[in-house]
């Protein structure tokens, strides 16, 4: 079994970090895993994405053109990645920054106002990325929030450890948020 994930958004939204937490989670679950970023001329405000592949056996390819689950945190990424979702796959859309619109009928759409939730419930829009991972956990059913909590400990450096409780709160909020069928 192999599953591909893409997380995409503006530079500065924590897209690469969210991917790193997810990949660490798969490692903690003893899966084979790779993480690959779009790298280069990206900057704050530009678009950025990363691909995470988890597999029971050897990962078949690090870079994938399509994925089972794609998280898009802004409109530009929604526009770009809708066509990259595998048939029957899922796209998780940050409806705070992207229009609620279903252009395909062979994939599952999950719309959630991720940025607004982070601002209103956590008081910090920087938590959007980890909140989105909570939704990934619930939708994909492939990784638990408990594992992702442990993954956070791996990724967050020593001098930022005080931020872990707030991030765990974000994970739970994402997981428990009632998904809006649209």
């Amino acid at each position: 079994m192999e599953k591909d994930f893409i997380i995409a958004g503006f530079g500065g939204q924590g897209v690469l970090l969210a991917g790193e937490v997810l990949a660490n989670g798969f490692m903690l679950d003893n899966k084979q895993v790779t993480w690959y970023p779009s790298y280069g001329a990206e900057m704050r405000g530009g678009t950025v994405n990363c691909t995470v592949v988890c597999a029971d056996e050897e990962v078949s390819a690090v870079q994938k053109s399509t994925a089972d689950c794609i998280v898009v945190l802004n409109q530009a990424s929604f526009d770009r990645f809708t066509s990259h979702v595998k048939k029957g796959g899922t796209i998780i859309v940050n409806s705070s920054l992207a229009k609620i619109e279903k252009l395909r009928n062979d994939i599952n759409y999950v719309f959630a106002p991720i940025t607004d939730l982070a601002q209103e419930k956590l008081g910090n829009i920087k938590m959007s990325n980890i909140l989105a991972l909570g939704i990934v956990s619930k939708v994909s059913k492939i990784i638990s929030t408990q594992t992702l909590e442990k993954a956070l400990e791996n990724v967050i450096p020593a001098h930022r450890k005080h931020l872990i409780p707030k991030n765990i709160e974000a994970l739970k909020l994402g997981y428990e948020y009632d998904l809006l069928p649209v």
Partner: protein
Amino acid sequence: MAVETITNKKVLMKGNYAIANAAVMSGCQCYFGYPITPQSEIGEFMSGKMQELGRGYVSAESELAAINMVMGACSTGVKAMTSSSSCAVSLMQEALSYACSDELPVVLVSVMRGGPGLGNIYPSQGDYIQSTRGGGNGDYRTLVLAPSTVQECFDLTQKAFYLAHKYKNPTILLADGLLGQMMEPLEFKEYPYPEVDNSSWCLTGAKGRDGRIIRSYAPLADNQCKFLDRLFAKYKLIEENETEWEEQNTKDADILLVSFGSTARNVRTAAKICREKGLKVGTLRPITLFPFPNKRLQELAQSVKKIISVEVNMGQMVDDIRLAVNGKVPVELINKGVGTPPSPEEIVSRIEELI
């Protein structure tokens, strides 16, 4: 994110940080470098870690300066390295020729990006020829190790330090932007090789002994011939002792796919798909590019019907394969100029076109 502490458990890490950590754990005493994408994390990590450990770190004013600083440090017998990418490795070619002639254990990490010229920053395997042949003057060879996973980025960096000192010869770790930038679980290992005694040649101050000179200059023609014979006897020894490769399902294979580095990952998957389709496909991955597994390819040329080289360049290793099999079997190329390797599905469909 750089992992600062060294533990025995698995950590998720970028290839660049794996290389840097391996260098530190190999006892690298001096790092000299100049930043360039996609390998800048190596210098970034070293700038903090080397200072913390009381070792040498210099952010050099240019790549020429960096590689010459490595030569200077190596002449005193310490482990020293630099790291760079494609167009900047070009600037180091003169020094590599000198370092081969001076027989200095220079370690160079080359993380390939697109070329020629400034090219772009995306992954590439376009420096196969630059690494295995070199752009310096005269007859010389550098050892070249090509990792395929983040774990191998770590393991082969340690090996590069060992081989460089064992053979007193520049050794290149040839990675690419994909390996440098991707993350994968990695297990740290202590340096597994013996320390090489270099007391007979290195420059440590002449107190109590005659002075030593390390130079690449032989004014008498005969001396230079003798020197080259000795140098090439060493390369022959390296070929006998150090040729390393990995192969899968070659026993009954009709088609042999040859690839190195990050491309070999997709090629293995492609071979698996081919087998499911009933095609008898095997794979061979050279781990050392010099020395190249010529003998093994000659043996396999007796049993396979076709060899296909898969590369992210316009066809470079394919020349070495053709030289190795010397017309015994047809050798084809599946390639892509620059970027991440062709997908397994694309490789399979191109194999089907070729047969």
